[in-house]
């Protein structure tokens, strides 16, 4: 078999395995109390670890310090919005609008 086909199939095997492992019936152990409690915090932790650097890090790898950064401005605005309304689609829509507006005001587009 072509090495690239083999690569694709093996990669697919690995990604599926990671997604399926804990859903398999073969795995019968029960997750312990502390682990279960920690898992409650998995979603907010992993999502935060993804969005915070986007908002607070500059392109140069420094912490954003100026108000001339559309990511920082719109990020703060989006956080404020999410405190006001819990309708996700409104927050996302207005947040992206803020970002575009910030870029325009800053003359980036």
């Amino acid at each position, binding site marked *: 078999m072509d090495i690239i086909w083999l690569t694709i199939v093996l*990669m697919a095997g*690995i990604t599926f395995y990671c997604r399926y492992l804990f859903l398999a019936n073969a795995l019968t152990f029960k997750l312990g109390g502390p682990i279960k409690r920690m898992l409650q915090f998995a979603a907010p932790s992993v999502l935060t670890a993804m969005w915070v650097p986007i908002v607070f890090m500059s392109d140069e790898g420094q*912490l954003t310090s100026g108000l001339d950064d559309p990511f920082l401005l719109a*990020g703060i605005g989006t956080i404020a919005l999410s405190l006001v309304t819990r309708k*996700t689609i409104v927050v996302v829509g207005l947040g992206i609008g803020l970002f575009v507006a910030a870029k325009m005001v800053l003359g980036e587009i």
Partner: protein
Amino acid sequence: MLWGPLPGAISNRARSYYKLNLSNDKLSGLKAKEFAIAKVDIVSDPSTSNETGVFETSHSFDNHRLVIQAAMDILPLALAVVPWGVLCGSLAVEAGLTPLQAQFMSLLVFAGAAQLAGISIIGAAGSLSSILMSTGVISARHLLYSAVLRDDIRPLSLAWRVALAFFLTDEMFAVTMAFKARYKVFSPLYSLLTGFLFYLVWNLATFAGIMAGKLLPDLQQLGLEFAIAATFIAIVVPQIRSFPVLGAVIASAVTALACQYFNINNGLVIATAVGMVSGFLVSLKGEDTWT
């Protein structure tokens, strides 16, 4: 090597997700910005409807409304991932895959970050073992997702479990958790639909990239990362209703920034772990909620 510092031309924001260094000879013909493959698994927001949703009040789910809800929730995330899918398709062909192979990679592997890493290694004529190792490292976070959803999905039939596992992405996980938070119930159908729609968009985007080849539009300049940030903010902030969750979020945020600032590899994994442990430690002092 993977996970190392990105070439200067690459936006640091891009590094928030998957840090890929594509600077190899085979790919160097591409424009610098195209290396900024910070792949983004964009996320969407799940809970777009109002508080008293039909899902909450009755256990007899209205499938029709569930379909609409799923589509609405995953749509922003799916659209945000389009540029990355396009990039994935075009880079795959550039790296030497046939169009059919490039499409099947998205059809079978269905993991943007892992695909982009694999493609870059193939393009650099790297070894199979290095490809598989990077795939494993990048995919490890999915172990966490399947562990979190274990109690919900495990009672289901084999077909459901396999299908839900196959479609389990950052995006599907995020909207599923938001749905659960809002309606206090796990809906396999909702999750499957969001996962499938995302899969559909990802593969159509890949196809477009394969067709477009080098005629890539200037997708990196659009600030697409912000769409991801906005969606994650919209999902996370409303969930902060207790001190343990607040502790987890703050700890994860500080750790993620520190890792990025000091160029520490695997910052996503480290920050997530620190956040989870912090939330747990705070929760030992009691589950104080303020709402």
